[in-house]
């Protein structure tokens, strides 16, 4: 992608709230469509923003299993919350996107016109470390396999990433257990750490050449050693405030040898197979293809839309679903996310963002499920095995 600079050498500066405003302006001036967190209908979501005024100043999220609500903070932090129901896949892997249009020519052959990439590249403002890792996980799937996904590549290649290092983790967060945060190490253009002690300011670190260029346009001050220490303290403390922990040791083998564990039937009894977890998960990437005839004669389109392994017809072949039971579908999702993802793509599929716990209507908690399986390693569900 772009050249990344070593952390110790990386240009850094301290910027204030004006600098934050300037950041949005500079990115827009450079032609980016800036996507940032903003408050909508009781949740913090990612939308295009035109100014830093649209950031959810002074708000935080209270998250627990099956629970999400916004609360006022007693400060005006712009980034004082973890992550809401959406992730950056909303823009990099949109829920519904046209792949191509086809038109029949004389003689019957058809011509394909592939969908061009979005007009403006994205600048993603406020990417948490967990979500940064999630983007890298999806990069593995779509860019680093035998085939490159053209649409994903078009959106990803030009994207400018502004990370925000977390100071306020949530009740369902466990990035520290997954080794994916709260501090981002690399893979971004700029990283901000919000400092609220004393003057409201941000330590800004460049992670790439173009990040350094943008930083240069922001008229920040040199970052003092105190600022750097303060920033490190923010994430260090955040690591100790995780809402959840997970023993992630050897999950692939644990799940591989417990494919008939009774816990799956247990979870299956609670699971509504609603698919919320797959919608909010930043790494879930399953899609389906829709081929449609357009009203005009001899024209057709192919669209790609999100799909979920929780839907019964996801596994449909030859007159039946392979996984009709909710037990089997829950098992598929959990064992894929934490186990077989490693076999398929070389990394875990989970980044510890906690969204699946927060947004499950019945509050199923993956950290609890995995702990239960580990605690009863080797148990077999004889009724269903």
């Amino acid at each position: 992608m772009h050249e990344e600079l070593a952390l110790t050498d990386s240009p850094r500066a301290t910027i204030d709230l004006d600098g934050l405003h300037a950041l949005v302006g500079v990115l827009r001036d450079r032609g980016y469509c800036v996507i940032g967190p903003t408050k909508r209908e009781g949740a913090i979501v990612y939308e295009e923003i035109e100014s830093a005024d649209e950031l959810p100043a002074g708000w935080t999220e209270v998250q627990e299993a099956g629970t999400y609500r916004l609360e006022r903070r007693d400060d005006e932090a712009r980034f004082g919350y973890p992550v809401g129901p959406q992730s950056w896949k909303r823009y990099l892997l949109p829920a519904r996107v046209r792949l191509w249009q086809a038109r029949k020519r004389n003689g019957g052959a058809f011509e394909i016109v592939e969908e061009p990439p979005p007009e403006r590249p994205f600048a993603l403002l406020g990417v948490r470390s967990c979500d940064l890792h999630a983007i890298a996980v999806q990069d593995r799937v779509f860019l680093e396999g035998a085939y490159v996904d053209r649409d994903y590549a078009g959106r990803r290649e030009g994207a400018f990433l502004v990370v925000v290092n977390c100071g306020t983790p949530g009740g369902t967060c466990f990035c520290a257990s997954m080794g994916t945060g709260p501090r981002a190490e690399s893979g971004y253009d700029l990283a901000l750490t919000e400092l609220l002690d004393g003057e409201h300011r941000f330590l800004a670190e460049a992670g790439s050449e173009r990040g350094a260029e943008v930083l240069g346009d922001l008229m920040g001050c040199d970052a003092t050693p105190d600022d750097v220490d303060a920033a490190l303290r923010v994430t260090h403390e955040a690591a100790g405030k995780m809402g959840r922990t997970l023993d992630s040791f050897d999950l692939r083998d644990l799940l591989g040898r417990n494919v008939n564990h009774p816990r799956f039937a247990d979870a299956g009894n609670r699971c509504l197979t609603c698919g919320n977890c797959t919608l909010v998960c930043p790494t879930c990437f399953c899609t389906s293809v829709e081929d449609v005839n357009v009203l005009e004669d001899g024209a057709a389109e192919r669209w790609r839309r999100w799909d979920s392994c929780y839907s019964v017809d996801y596994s449909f072949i030859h007159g039946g679903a392979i996984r009709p039971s909710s037990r089997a579908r829950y098992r598929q999702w959990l064992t894929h996310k934490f186990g077989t993802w490693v076999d398929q793509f070389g990394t875990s599929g989970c980044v510890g963002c906690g969204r699946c716990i927060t947004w499950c209507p019945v509050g199923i908690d993956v950290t609890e499920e995995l702990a239960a399986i580990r605690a009863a390693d080797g148990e077999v569900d004889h009724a269903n095995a």
Partner: protein
Amino acid sequence: MATAPAAETAPRGAMAPEPYRVASRAPETVDTWTLLLEPLGAPIVPAPGQFNMLYAFGVGEVPISTSAAPEPGGELVHTIRAVGPVTQKLCATEPGDVIGVRGPFGTTWPLEEARGGDLVIVAGGIGLAPVRPAVYHALTHRDDYGSLCVLVGARTPSDLLYVRELEDWRGRFDVEVGVTVDSAVGDWHGRVGVVPRLIPGAAFDPAATTALVVGPEIMMTFTAKALLEQGVPKERIYVSMERNMRCGLGHCGHCQLGPMLICRDGPVFRYDEMEALMGVREL
């Protein structure tokens, strides 16, 4: 080991099909047709065991294995059973119609690795279609293999595929052909019974045999069992697996079978790698 597809980043998106013209459409059984396709754009050359995604314009795509020996010119042969909207549309095409093709995808039959030994091919139902290229290969490279046994099962005699070819193969002195059906009425003088019963009587040396098995999953399991009982090593038995498939590229997630992606790690698998996974319900 079965071979993996070459890595490619095509400038043309991997979800865009190439146009192919239907040269002919021949009926095989009451619900199965074989299409002969000619490329109008870039040729696609699948190796034995691989599959293409066939696109019925405006309707959808399905994964169908190749049923031909590889043609450098890109001509394709696909045998399709009409079971849903896409396959029904494909099976209703007329010569001259244009469909779309993406591919080739997937792993191949281990025809190189099987050289020097006996080759036993066991096909149930439409399973004969994806393994026919392996038979063709063995016949054109006959000296590379010892005994060649082609064992075929179908529901009834009218469900047998490629009947004329089966008769031709049976007419050769260097191929053993066994055919059985689940039940028969009227004029059938052949065997009636399950496919595994063909195995004990077939002439091959189990210790020096590679077996290719294709058909419904239960049929493959029973057949593998019968082969193991004869002494064929587990790692020399190959099966062809199937799951719901939407992209063929390893991007849509649908074709997962435990740790495998069928479009990328299969459809041809070694039985020793697949046996445990096949034994897990609703995997």
